Structures are given as C-alpha cells and as structure tokens.
C-alpha cells in the first residue's frame, strides 16, 4: 500500500511538472490517466520495493551527489589523457569481486562504473564484475572498491 501511495504521488507530480496545466478540466484528465497507469502497474504486479525503492530515497540522493563528484574528477583526468601529447593508454580487462548481493545493488554498481569515464562494465556474473579500464590508474579505482562500498547498504537488506 505504501508503494502504491508513493507511485500515485510521483506520477501526479511528474504529470504536473511535464504539463504545467492548471485548468480544472485538464487536471481531472490528468488524475484519470494517473489512476489508470497505477491500475495497470498494479495489474502487472510491478509495484514493489525493487521498482519503487522508497526506503532509500534519501540515501540514494547522497549516493548520487558522491557519484557526480566522482564523475567530475574522472572526467578531468580523461580530458588530460585525451589532450596530452603522449596519452597514457594501457587498456586492460580486470575481474573484481563485489560486495553487492541484490540484483538492484549490482545494477546500480555496474551503471556507476560505466558512468565514470575510464571504466566500462562488460559483464556481471555472480559476485564478480568484468571491467574494461583505460589505464592502470582507472583500473585501480575499481579494484579498491570505493564505489562498491558507497552503494547504499540498505539496497541489500531487502532481498
């Protein structure tokens, strides 16, 4: 029930932000479409903790801020590599053991690794991820597993 309320709230908010209408007729049409989408989602049985992780909204925001900072730092390194006369390119594929247990945690981690320039997730299998790294420095970044530790722990608690 909690997730349904959350879904309704977010859908209504999204509808209003994207349309910006305030006329009663249009708003009532919006309400009808929001209710319909929620009904379909309920019938598809996809309204659960995985699709709608309410319990970690705040932690996710903190994680995103940290991730944005990391992305910024590695972007600057990447620009330096691209523009330098003799680029430090020494690509390698590394296998790293990860701590994430849940599917969601693995997806979040894999996406984060890909978002950070210099590393791309090739494959996630069991508790190992395969990462293509541009040079030794970016490979070490993944091997140390700081990102892995930063993924909100409560993602794991659930499943």
């Amino acid at each position: 029930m909690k997730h349904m309320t959350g879904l309704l709230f977010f859908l209504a908010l999204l509808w209003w932000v994207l349309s910006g209408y305030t006329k009663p007729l249009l708003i009532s049409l919006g309400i009808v479409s929001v209710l319909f989408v929620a009904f379909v989602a309920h019938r598809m049985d996809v309204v659960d903790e995985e699709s709608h992780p309410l319990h970690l909204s705040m932690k996710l925001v903190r994680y995103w801020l940290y991730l944005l900072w990391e992305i910024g730092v590695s972007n600057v390194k990447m620009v330096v590599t691209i523009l330098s006369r003799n680029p430090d390119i020494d690509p390698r594929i590394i296998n790293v053991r990860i701590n994430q247990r849940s599917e969601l945690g693995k997806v979040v981690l894999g996406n984060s690794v890909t978002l950070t320039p210099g590393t791309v997730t090739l494959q996630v299998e069991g508790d190992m991820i395969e990462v293509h790294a541009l040079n030794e420095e970016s490979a070490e970044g993944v091997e140390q597993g700081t990102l892995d530790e930063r993924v909100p722990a409560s993602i794991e608690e659930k499943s």
Partner: protein
Amino acid sequence: MDIVQVLSAILLGLGAVLGVVGAIGILRFPDFYTRMHAAGITDTLCTGFFVGGLMLQFGLTLASVKLLLIFMFMLFTCPTATHALAKAARHGGLKPWVKTDAGAGLGNEGRAS
C-alpha cells in the same frame, strides 16, 4: 549582463569544449573499447554542463525541472547503452587493443582502417 547570464555562458562554453574534447578522444584513441571511454565524457559532464547552463537561463521555472529530469534520464540510460555496446562487441569476438612495448604510445594495430 548580469551574473547569472555570465555563469550560464561559462557553463555552456565549458560543455561545448568538453563535447569537442570527447570527439577528439574518439578520433585519437586506438580501438573500439578505448573510444567508448572517450565518449563517456560527452555522456556525463558535457550534458551536465549544458543542462546546468540552460537551467540558469530559465531560472526557477517548470522548464528547469524538465531539464533536470532530462539529465536524470540521461544518467540512467547512457550507461545501459554503453554497456550494451561493449557486451555486443565482446560477444562478437572483438579483441581489445593492448599496449605493446615496442610501439609505446599509440600503435596502429588496433585501428579500424
């Protein structure tokens, strides 16, 4: 010219520069996988600067919120697309370029010509 306009212009300029740098990277790097890393710049920071600059132009309006939403969707979809590309290349049997001791720096082996 007030301060917001200047800031917005700076952000947009930085975004444009990063886009060009990303393109240079794609041209300079030796093979498919490494080029993907270079494209990562345009995925993230370049888009971020553009969205930031445009948000300053619009101020606190609904348009800004929409821009923020676009940025968030980019953050979710870009890595997925990159990962799909990388995985397709790997399953297709494309060998990653490795640095050889002889030709330090950028060799020619991996170049698709």
